[in-house]
């Protein structure tokens, strides 16, 4: 083995482990989608990070913080791992962040375990990820976290029979299991569980099947974009609302596609952790700054996940510089006021304990835009999908 290379690698590894001693710039590698069908997520992460930096400066605890963005283009664990290696070895980053899709996050687990790099997940919502390494922290939510309170709330509202209709893939099935377990525990009845192929473009058959069973409500989970668009359109056109079949969802009315749904979305009920219309000073400051920096930007789960993730990184840098284990220790039970409301890190699951709000889609009188209007907090919970 070439001695020169060995020396260079040793230097690289040394920075990873104890860079704080002499480095005054802390680097954060952000692995996200900046191309492909999900490019909007990367854009939103970046906008939110820049908003945070604009509000709080580019320094924390005396260290400069620099963000390096890498495009992973979608669910692509091979590339995600390669990019993480490049960031850790060549760019010598001290923190990793981003990660929209579960496989991308999972692929990083063995790496960050070895390099002791705190990694803040902005989205990837499968409970099991955080079990793969103690260096994962998550500022999004898990499907259990929002589906379970929704089931409880729905039962209390007098919705006693429900049909679940979810996209037939991991997250959809998680949502179905979470909802069903909680709803039946309450005493409600899930009449039918429909799993819709991901490639579905015409949802009429599924909507008709829901309709023919005349439940009090339909719990839906679909990936964002075209499937959600098609499902909510179909729900509306086939007059389910008129027949008293209440729509119960989670992320379906998220802000980046909400305007595209049009008036058909009005009245849809969802349980979720963040609404752009959340009424608080922190959120007002966040959305205002976001709008100033990038014209036409909307705030949604991706923005708030990245914003809070950046906050977490700032706090870690402040407390521990580049010392990974110490940094995790420092923020494991951190509490702060997020644009989504008060939040708290759960030391066991390293996922946020946060409010779950029940919201209805309304047209805002002032702006004329569709918004998720929060009607109340239905639970303050951590990751309910965690199993020991």
């Amino acid at each position, binding site marked *: 083995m070439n001695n020169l290379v060995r020396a260079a690698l040793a230097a690289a590894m040394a920075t990873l482990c104890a860079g704080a001693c002499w480095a005054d710039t802390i680097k954060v590698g952000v692995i996200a989608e900046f191309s492909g069908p999900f*490019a909007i997520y990367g854009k939103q992460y970046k906008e939110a990070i820049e908003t945070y930096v604009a509000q709080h400066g580019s320094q924390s605890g005396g260290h400069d913080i620099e963000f390096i963005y890498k495009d992973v283009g979608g669910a692509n664990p091979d590339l995600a791992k390669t990019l993480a290696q490049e960031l850790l070895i060549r760019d010598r980053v001290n923190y990793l962040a981003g990660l929209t899709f579960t496989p991308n996050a999972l692929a990083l687990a063995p790496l960050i375990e070895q390099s002791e790099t705190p990694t803040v997940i902005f989205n990837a919502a499968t409970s099991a990820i955080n079990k793969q390494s103690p260096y994962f922290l998550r500022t999004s939510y898990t499907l259990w976290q929002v589906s379970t309170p929704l089931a409880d709330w729905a039962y209390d509202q007098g919705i006693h029979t429900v049909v679940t209709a979810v996209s037939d893939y991991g997250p959809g099935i998680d949502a179905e299991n979470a909802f069903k377990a909680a709803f039946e525990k309450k005493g409600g009845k899930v009449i039918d569980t429909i799993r819709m192929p991901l490639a579905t473009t015409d949802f009429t058959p599924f909507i008709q099947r829901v309709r023919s069973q005349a439940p009090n409500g339909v719990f839906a989970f679909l990936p964002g974009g075209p499937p959600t668009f098609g499902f909510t359109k179909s729900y509306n056109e086939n007059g389910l609302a008129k027949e008293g079949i209440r729509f119960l969802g989670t992320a379906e009315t998220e802000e980046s596609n909400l305007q595209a749904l049009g008036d058909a979305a009005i009245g849809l009920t969802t349980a979720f952790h963040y609404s752009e219309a959340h009424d608080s000073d922190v959120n007002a400051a966040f959305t205002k700054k976001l709008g100033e920096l990038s014209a036409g930007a909307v705030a949604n789960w991706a923005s708030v996940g990245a914003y809070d993730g950046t906050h977490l990184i700032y706090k870690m840098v402040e407390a521990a510089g580049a010392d990974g284990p110490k940094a995790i220790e420092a923020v494991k039970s951190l509490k702060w006021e997020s644009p989504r409301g008060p939040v708290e890190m759960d030391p066991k699951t390293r996922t946020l304990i946060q409010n779950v709000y029940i919201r209805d889609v309304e047209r805002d009188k002032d702006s004329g835009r569709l918004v998720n209007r929060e009607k109340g907090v239905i639970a303050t919970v951590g990751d309910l999908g965690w199993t020991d």
Partner: protein
Amino acid sequence: MSLILNIAVDGIAYGMILFMISIGLSVTMGLMRVINLAHGAFALLGGAAAHALIARAGLSFMAAALLAIMATMAIAFLLERLVYRRIYGLGELQQVLATIGITFIFIALVNRLLGSSLLAIPLPDFLQQSVDLGFRVLPAHRLAVILAGAVVIAGLYLTIERSRFGTRLRAAVDNRSIASALGINIDAVFAATFCLGAGLAALGGILGAELLPIDAYYPLRYMVLFLIVVSVGGMGSITGSFMAALALGILETASRYLIPDFGTIVFFAAVMAVLAIRPRGLLGKA
């Protein structure tokens, strides 16, 4: 009984949407024999233009749709003169590559101009209503699509099977040099047909947007769907595409009513079976 009626109604309505979104491809690929993977790109152009004209310029749906289709045809005309003319004579693989290249460029263009979120095309009020069929309701826009499909297939039948233009086109596709020797202006015939195909793609993109919403990635997301309709129908046959669209629409709808869990596998297995038994499609010509 009501199940069968539901399957029939939804299947035909969905089949008509499949027909509308893939008819442009039947023209460019089926009649002109270009493996035109950029079909979705023209649908995207039409849809994105309609979105921009309605949402940003405030035009009515009808005016915007008409303008968007014309704009798409104009771009298609330029593209035909500059690029497609050179593609006709290439091997199928080269055609696949060249049209994928064009698709990439259009995706990047739309993303650059309008971003990568959904581009809604709001329908006029009269298309947003529901129509009561007695045993159930059907959205008005699906009836409109069925109507548009009927008009398009009648129009194409008259243009291609019955008119002088159609005779020339078929002659030009079958044998360029002889057709040219007979005094047929091949360039003009091909340019006109290509623009027709692109215009139909834009129309399909706009009318189908309620089910297949427009966004920058539209051409790649639905490419396989378009190709299936045309290949099952058979190259060179408008009627074949029509029948294939209806059959696939009914098949998919039935599988979703009856065996939703295995709908996707059943659908593709059926497509494979048809292509294995009839490699040239239902009504394909040699």
